[in-house]
């Protein structure tokens, strides 16, 4: 039976959708059968990040309302071994689906996949309640900013209150240079304040923007963010991989390799 993971954050714009796409792709590259589900009704975006926006015929609301079968709505991403997308609806509003319907959908499909990843909308209203209804565990995405960490704390409290006990933190867009000069909270600062397990750290990397522009993954690419996503995926499959918090001084090898990247 597959593991159902909701990717959530509270605050918008911290990288939930990018994280869902890249973890989905990374797990698929590790030989896992993965479905990524966009639960943000009315603001469909996961398809765009994955570069699959032109292939949508049916969506999650069509499946729930019985207008089509699940297989008809699923989009297989042909670039990767076993990656499927269930897109959201762009026209429906968040109240057109209930948490019970979401849970039933997830329970119906989890046997067919190794991982079910739910991309949660921002906020703590109905869309959030829908997204977490069928989840076993969560990945809480935050950036090292006061507002994002505050919302992450709130979200973790709500997840715990809903009976989801396993909530792992993903710190996104860490600016290594700013941490070094004391102008951005470090990985230790954030984990100490939130007191949850850390799943991984994604350094701020312009390759993420470039990849997203093109509807391509950054996972598996030879850049800091790409490697960090690959490590996170391997941790999700049970491998013990030490977490790089980017606090050690930059090595000579990385300096040379970044010189090559610039040119």
């Amino acid at each position: 039976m597959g593991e159902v993971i909701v990717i959530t954050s509270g605050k918008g714009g911290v990288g939930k959708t990018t994280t869902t796409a890249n973890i989905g792709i990374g797990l698929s590259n590790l030989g896992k059968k993965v479905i990524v589900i966009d639960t943000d009704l009315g603001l469909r975006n996961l398809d765009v990040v994955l570069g699959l926006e032109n292939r949508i015929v049916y969506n999650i609301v069509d499946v729930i309302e019985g207008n089509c079968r699940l297989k008809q709505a699923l989009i297989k991403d042909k670039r990767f071994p076993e990656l499927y997308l269930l897109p959201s609806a762009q026209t429906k509003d968040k109240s057109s689906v209930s948490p019970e319907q979401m849970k039933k959908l997830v329970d119906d499909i989890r046997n067919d996949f190794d991982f079910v990843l739910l991309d949660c909308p921002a906020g703590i209203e109905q869309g959030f309640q829908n997204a977490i209804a069928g989840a076993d565990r969560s990945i809480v995405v935050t950036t090292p900013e006061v507002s994002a960490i505050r919302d992450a704390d709130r979200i973790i409290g709500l997840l715990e209150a809903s009976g989801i006990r396993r909530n792992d933190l993903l710190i996104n867009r860490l600016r290594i240079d700013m941490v070094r000069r004391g102008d951005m909270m470090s990985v230790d600062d954030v984990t100490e304040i939130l007191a949850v397990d850390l799943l991984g750290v994604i350094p701020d990397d312009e390759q993420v923007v470039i990849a997203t522009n093109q509807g391509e993954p950054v996972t598996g690419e030879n850049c800091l963010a790409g490697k960090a996503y690959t490590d996170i995926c391997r941790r999700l499959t049970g491998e013990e991989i030490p977490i790089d918090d980017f606090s050690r001084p930059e090595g000579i090898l990385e300096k040379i390799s970044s010189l090559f990247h610039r040119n």
Partner: protein
Amino acid sequence: MSVNSVSVAKERLKNLLVSDRMQCTPEAVDRLEGDLYHTVSKYVEVRREDFDITVTRTDIHIKYMGEKN
């Protein structure tokens, strides 16, 4: 600008989280700390500067002895 901004951010964040977690204002948290200090000091010898409460999502921790590091 000699003070690094991380220490300011952490201080603001800690205060925010305590009020969020307890669903009350920072002033109310201060009053709670004062009342708890008053109560504890009736039974335990404690100095105000050593007394500290920490609020997590599930517990309130009371520290009443200074830790010597």
